[in-house]
């Protein structure tokens, strides 16, 4: 309580240069335990997906009717070589879940990438050109938003035919309006700022203004929405798989696994419990990450 504590503040004197933006971001982000937990789970899922051929104990598609519907290892009749049990045609559930992680991540990333690229371009165009172009694009997006998302996805898949590829396209279209709206709103705020005027005066063309000047300054909301979008994409694609409209059997997609196992729910709890749990945990992780990113990147909440 005397001289020692008096000296302590000297260390905390603000440094002359502000901290690197990434460092500052990490400071805010790591203070949010939920977000860090989400990140840890996502890293784990990514590792599982990448190392699937190494860590999966069995071939995910290898059937063996002799061991059909074996319970998990801690229940009577289960064995440690099939830790989470087997499905109705004797495939190892754990191995299928591990390979399913590849599919779910692929779905999430591919859908959001497609959506974000098209959405950003449409949003930039709407925000820059205004007038009729803007009205047309935004009304179109409003219509997409009006329809219940899964209904629209179902209709699209019904037309294109069931399958993972078509399901991904449908989900990408369904989440598109969020990115268009975000990009347009950001563009409209940014274009009124001086640096855009400065760039314009120094002769920058519209394309350069759009992609080089404005876009980098509206990435924050897009990143947040991307993380939340991945969770929506995984969830919706799994729902389509569950309805029989997404990935088709024998694909180890988690939603499709649930659909396959549905009729055995009364006899074997493990065949439905684990795939759903995998979906829930992964989706939860991306939502936690998205919330954390928003808190860390949103300047309104800072300080």
């Amino acid at each position, binding site marked *: 309580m005397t001289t020692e504590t008096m000296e302590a503040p000297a260390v905390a004197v603000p440094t002359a240069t502000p901290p690197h933006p990434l460092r500052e971001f990490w400071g805010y982000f790591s203070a949010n335990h*939920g977000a860090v937990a989400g990140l840890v789970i996502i890293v784990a899922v990514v590792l599982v997906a990448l190392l699937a051929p190494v860590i999966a104990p069995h071939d995910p598609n290898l059937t063996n009717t002799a061991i059909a519907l074996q319970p998990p290892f801690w229940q009577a009749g289960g064995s440690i070589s099939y830790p989470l049990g087997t499905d109705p045609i004797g495939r190892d559930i754990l191995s299928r879940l591990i390979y399913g992680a590849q599919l779910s991540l692929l779905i999430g990333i591919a859908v959001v990438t497609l959506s974000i690229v098209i959405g950003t371009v449409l949003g930039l165009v709407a925000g820059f050109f205004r007038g009729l172009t803007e009205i047309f694009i935004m*009304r*179109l997006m*409003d*219509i997409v938003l*009006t*329809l*219940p*998302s*899964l*209904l629209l996805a*179902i*209709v699209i898949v*019904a*037309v*294109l*035919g069931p399958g993972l590829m078509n399901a991904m396209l449908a989900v990408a279209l369904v989440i598109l309006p969020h990115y268009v709206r975000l990009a347009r709103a950001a563009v409209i705020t940014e274009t009124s700022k001086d640096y855009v005027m400065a760039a314009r005066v120094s002769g920058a063309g519209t394309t350069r203004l759009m992609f080089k000047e404005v876009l980098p300054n509206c990435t924050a909301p897009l990143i947040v929405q991307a993380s939340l979008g991945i*969770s929506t994409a995984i*969830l919706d694609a*799994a*729902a389509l798989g*569950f*309805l*029989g*409209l997404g990935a088709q059997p024998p694909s180890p997609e988690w*939603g499709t696994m*649930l659909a396959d196992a*549905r009729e055995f*729910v*009364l006899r074997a*709890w493990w065949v*439905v*419990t684990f*795939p*759903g*749990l995998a*979906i*829930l945990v992964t*989706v*939860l992780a991306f*939502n*936690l990450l998205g*919330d954390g990113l928003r808190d860390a990147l949103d300047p309104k909440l800072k300080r």
Partner: protein
Amino acid sequence: MLRFIFTRVSLIIPTFIGITLLAFFLIRLVPGDPIETLAGERGIDPARHEQLRKEYGFDQPILVQYGIYLSRVLQGDLGKSMITQEPVLNEFSSLFPATIELALCAILFALIIGLPAGIIAAIRRNSIFDHGVMGVSLAGYSMPIFWWGLILILLFSVQFDLTPVSGRIDVLYYIEPITGFLLIDTLLSDEVDAFWSAVQHLILPTIVLGTVPLAVIARMTRSAMLEVLGEDYIRTAKAKGLSRFRIVALHALRNALIPVVTVIGLQIGVLFTGAILTETIFSWPGVGKWLIDAIFRRDYPVLQGGALLLGVVVMSVNLLVDLAYGLINPRIRHTR
């Protein structure tokens, strides 16, 4: 106010055109000949084919075809189901009450639990209760409800034998549809046993369909309450010596509810999406299951008409929510 209503109502015209365009092109985008798509897999003889081609106007330019389709839709003619030969509109209106009944119960369930949970979480900020509510609602928000339904069946129907697994009411009972809502019809026809059977059948689907709205409402109520509780007028009310209950119930809640009402309105679309999955799991005879069945039977008229009708319903609900919101909150109707 009139001006606000007028602009808001006129905004639905492009949306309506968009939905009809979507439904119109749906049939034409299915690979193959649209007449054969509409007629089903059994095929039809060439003379009938030609007749249908004329009737539906497939020999006309695409814009004229759309005009014909639109005028049919506006007259309530959405075509006939290929399987049952029933008009799509009739099938929809006989199944829709089941969906509405389920959706209303689900939103009530979400409100009865979500509102108090959000309010208490906000009052006791950072307490264990608050963290619990936020954690549970985040899980609810991330819930694959098609799995949630199966797990609840596993727990309540299989393990404890408390609730039925599927359907709307026990097959023992036949209730003449009066309103279409079984909870009301059973009471109107004085069948108390049937009423309880209907209630039991409703419990699990209601929980499953209500989970996501519950999570969203709890989160939204909490954050709206937190914002309001920090306002000056709350401090004034405290300074006046009002009781805690009075402050929360009368001063804070009323203002916190405005964003919550909007969120509830936005959940309507989510509810219909969820209804498709919930009805499929519980074999609930509503429009969601009807649509999914139509896909697998390749009953395209049903798919086309059903999607259009559901789209129109959601559009109308959104419109009503917006109008109600404009009534409650004058700031909305005076901007722009």
